[in-house]
């Protein structure tokens, strides 16, 4: 017992109250530094109290942290998988078709000169027929040059038309694409899909033709076979198969054929014409903006893949919404853990709260202490969850799947984009702080007198 020491203190000095500062430096007792936060500011004392609350209740704190960490980890694992598969899907969608196609059409019919002259005219001219013209993109060389001057894209001119192929007494209507092989390679994956021959072979054979595997099987054609092509314009020519491709899309493989642009122009009787530009971007998502730019500049209709597959994009959006609401639900459940922990702390520490308030702590000091606890749980839990989630994603990417009927081993597509980390962090912090609001408010409302009366 140290009571004697207390009596010895008999206030012979109390110097501390008589002078502004002690004249002799006081030897500091060896404090524990664990809870002494840098400066004596109000914020740091609030934080210090918040930390002690969490540290003194290790098990519930740990459970709350695990809840948030698991929530964030699952959030990331599911999100990376869903977003990865979405990207994979889009990649397939995008790579097998052009990012942007410029057609030799106008989005809206050209207004008639009379309408332009008298826009408010009361009389409408009927049975007006547009001027007959050779279809195709006018001045395609300059327009292509303009498009190619834009950064981050590659463009190729194409003339698309229909021809009938006949071979060994069998006829088949197909789409003939007149291409420039060197440019086509930059905008299409067709080059990678060649099973026999190559796209470049077209350049060497002015009468060369590249067909799909489906069509080749239909005709019983193989490399080097000669097939007769007849166009609606009445032209006819024998073409030699110099390449066979397989995209896996049966419709495409049976109907699409490629030849040199010059040959197609001759066959279709549209000399020096092209009716499409096919564009490929480094970043497919800029297609929509570039489409409107091109359309504004050259007038022809430019359709991006985003516009062409708007229905699919909205399906993907709905899918993402569903996925994010499910994974956020995990975090909402985790938030109940935090709510539970903090409510218990408020109940257990109600005497501390009463003494702090009687000492002169404001209601908002107390509220901030408990909000800070929510923030700390959320932050630490999120960081743990981030590590765990990255680990899970690392495991998922190693999973190997062999789809039935396929020969290649496929890896799960995983998306590593930073936006999902921010989203997970945002959801986790919102749940954690949201869970802290009610306990914090309850703590702030503690009336010291109620507690003191209970004790007295």
């Amino acid at each position, binding site marked *: *017992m*140290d*009571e004697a*020491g*207390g*009596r*010895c*203190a*008999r*206030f012979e*000095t*109390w*110097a*501390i*109250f008589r002078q502004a*500062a*002690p004249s002799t*430096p*006081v*030897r*500091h*007792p*060896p*404090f*524990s530094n664990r*809870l*002494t936060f*840098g*400066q*004596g*500011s*109000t914020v*740091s*004392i609030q934080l*210090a*109290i918040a930390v*002690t*609350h969490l*540290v*003194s209740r290790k098990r519930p704190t740990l459970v709350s942290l695990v809840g948030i960490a698991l929530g964030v980890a699952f959030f990331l694992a599911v999100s990376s998988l869903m977003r990865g598969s979405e990207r994979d899907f889009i990649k397939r969608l995008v790579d097998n078709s052009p990012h942007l196609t410029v057609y030799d059409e106008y989005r809206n019919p050209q207004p008639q000169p009379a309408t332009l002259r008298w826009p408010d005219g009361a009389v409408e001219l009927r049975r007006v027929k547009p001027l007959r013209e050779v279809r195709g993109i006018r001045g395609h060389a300059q327009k292509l040059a303009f498009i190619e001057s834009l950064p981050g894209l590659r463009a190729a001119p194409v003339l698309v038309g229909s021809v009938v192929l006949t071979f060994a007494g069998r006829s088949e209507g197909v789409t003939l694409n007149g291409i420039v092989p060197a440019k086509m390679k930059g905008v299409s994956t067709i080059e990678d899909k060649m099973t026999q021959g190559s796209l470049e072979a077209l350049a060497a054979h002015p009468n060369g033709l590249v067909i799909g595997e489906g069509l080749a099987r239909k005709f019983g054609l193989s490399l080097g076979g000669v097939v007769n092509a007849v166009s609606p314009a009445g032209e006819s020519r024998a073409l030699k198969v110099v390449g066979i491709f397989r995209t896996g899309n049966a419709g495409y493989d049976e109907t699409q054929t490629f030849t040199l642009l010059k040959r197609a122009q001759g066959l279709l009787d549209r000399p020096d014409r092209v009716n499409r530009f096919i564009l490929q971007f480094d970043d497919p998502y800029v297609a929509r903006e570039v489409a409107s730019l091109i359309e504004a500049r050259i007038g022809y209709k430019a359709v991006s893949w985003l516009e062409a597959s708007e229905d699919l994009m909205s399906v993907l959006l709905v899918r993402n919404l569903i996925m994010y609401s499910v994974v956020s639900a995990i975090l909402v459940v985790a938030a109940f853990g935090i709510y539970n922990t903090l409510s218990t702390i408020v109940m257990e520490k109600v*005497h*501390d709260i*009463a*003494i*702090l*308030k*009687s*000492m*002169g*702590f*404001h*209601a908002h*000091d107390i509220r901030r202490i408990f909000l800070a606890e929510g923030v700390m749980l959320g932050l630490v839990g999120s960081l743990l969850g981030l590590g765990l989630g990255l680990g899970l994603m690392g495991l998922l990417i190693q999973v190997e799947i062999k789809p039935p009927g396929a020969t290649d081993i496929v890896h799960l597509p995983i998306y590593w984009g930073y936006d999902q980390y921010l989203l997970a962090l945002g959801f986790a912090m919102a749940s954690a702080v949201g869970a802290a609001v009610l306990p914090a408010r309850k703590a702030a409302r503690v*009336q*010291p*007198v109620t507690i*003191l*009366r209970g*004790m*007295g």
Partner: protein
Amino acid sequence: MNPILAAENLGRVLPGEVPVTLVQDVTLDIERGEFVAIMGPSGSGKSSLLYLLGLLDTPTSGRVWLDGRDTSRFGEDELAATRLEKLGFVFQFHFLLAEFTVLDNVLLPMRRLSARPEDEARQRAAELLRQLGLGDQGHKRPHQLSGGQRQRVAIARALANDPPVVLADEPTGNLDSHASANVRQILHDLTRELGKTVVAVTHDLTFASAADRRIGIVDGLIAPDWQA
């Protein structure tokens, strides 16, 4: 000279189906440097009176004057700020924060007020503990101390921001006679040596006999001729 603490027709009724009157029509003046003991039987309302004087509770009638200011119009934040600067509390149970060291407990009010730099506040806390004979206990946790020591830490904490008034609710109620005598002596010396005003609710006759003035409370009313 103005009284440091004054009650004017102070009343407190707990609302409810059957309203309970805790304190009624108490008027009293407490001078600077006075050592006042409030006495009375259990449930007489003496603690309720102390809470009203300490701005912890809001009166249903009347008002409290502290240091010449009418506190009846203070908002909750202003009341808290006034408690922080002008009042120090010592309760029957020490109410130290268990997770903090003794020194950090004494530092709490100073850190909240933020009037002193951390360095100076630490020196002051250490000096306060030394004055109360706890100079070598600063690094300990409250549970490592005896009851009397803890109560002295609570006194050090009450004095941290150098308030003019110290209010004590049964400060010796939980202590053995030796420790009680020590705490009584300290509170007495606070008024004599430092000019603090001490108002203490007590059952302890020895404690009350050390006071300058004894106020009896019975059924929430001042009982001038009350004898324990």
